[in-house]
């Protein structure tokens, strides 16, 4: 018997990465800004996205959303109340979205064409670990954390925060009753991802939304 070592040097998620690169090309040529929203379950992604969609629509911007969950279309129904086109992706047990699921759900989406959109939001499955490995072709990855989750969340999940382009702190209206240490949270985020844009928001009071919407408009503008 002889032993042979074959060097492969191949990305394990190569198939996903290739599909995501194809999606990114499509999004770029259609001129749509795509954002991938990632957080733990219960951070308030859906409430934040619902308010974002309402605000964008009231300004005449064309926005749509794909929403990932293990089961149920509850979130899609909540988001659809904003008037924006919304499509649910049920992963049936898989803890993250991947580029193939996004590709499939862009097909046959009634009344929606990428070229007709300015913004496409992809709400990932609630999970701070697995989605960080899967590129969905987004231009902006957004990590969200709520004031109830603790200031050290970025330190516990550096894989996600380090690979994100923007961070959104949600439920800021609860900061005081929760004893949320704002300075510490901001410092922890910046230690993991120096220079990241941070937004402090509340979907209940609407605080912080103006800054967030200004950021979206700035990012959507062709370079």
């Amino acid at each position, binding site marked *: *018997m*002889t*032993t*042979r*070592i*074959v*060097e*492969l*040097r*191949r*990305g*394990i*998620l*190569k*198939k996903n990465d290739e599909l995501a690169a194809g999606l990114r090309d499509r999004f770029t040529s259609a001129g749509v800004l795509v954002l991938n929203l990632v957080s733990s379950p219960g951070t308030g992604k859906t409430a934040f996205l619902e308010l974002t969609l309402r605000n964008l629509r009231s300004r005449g911007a064309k926005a749509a959303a794909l929403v990932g969950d293990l089961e149920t279309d509850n979130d899609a129904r909540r988001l659809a109340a904003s008037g924006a086109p919304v499509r649910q992706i049920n992963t049936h047990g*898989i*803890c*993250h979205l*991947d580029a193939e699921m996004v590709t499939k759900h862009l097909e046959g989406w009634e009344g929606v064409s990428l070229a007709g959109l300015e913004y496409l939001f992809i709400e990932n499955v609630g999970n701070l*670990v*697995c989605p*960080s*490995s*899967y590129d969905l072709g987004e231009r902006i990855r957004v990590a969200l954390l709520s004031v109830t989750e603790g200031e050290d969340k970025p*330190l516990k999940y*550096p*894989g*996600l925060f*380090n*690979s994100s382009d923007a961070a959104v702190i949600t439920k800021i209206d609860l900061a005081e009753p929760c004893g949320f240490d704002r300075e510490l949270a901001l410092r922890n985020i*910046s*230690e*993991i*991802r*120096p*220079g990241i844009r941070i937004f402090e928001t509340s979907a209940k009071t609407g605080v912080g939304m103006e800054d967030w919407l200004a950021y979206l408009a700035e990012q959507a503008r062709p370079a």
Partner: protein
Amino acid sequence: MHELSIAASIVEAVTESAAAYPGARVIAVRLRVGALASVVEDSLKFCWELASEGSPIAGAALVINKLPVILHCESCNADSEIDGVQSFRCPHCNELATDLRQGRELEIESIELEEPENGDAPSTAPDPLRNQEVREQI
């Protein structure tokens, strides 16, 4: 818990590559996994057993080579390995740094094959892996 999906992707990729060496048995698969790859080693090893069972590469060992984060510092121009992943500061000048030179890898580095001595692996047929670096070992 995406380690099962990752293990399944490895089985698929390795089975595909090993098909170029008929008669050979895959005895080990070596990975390069960065500290920021969000992969739990024990969980991946457990899933590996499940994912490879019943496949053409069942029984192959999974060897995980963990890679620390290496940061490039814009301020002092040094590339340094950092301890842990809780703070992205240059160990030399203490400035925050964003330029990662290593740490997100999630790769199959190599596979180790066992081949019969006078194996009938086709030597005349075109080798689909001919562009890859191949080392022979006794």
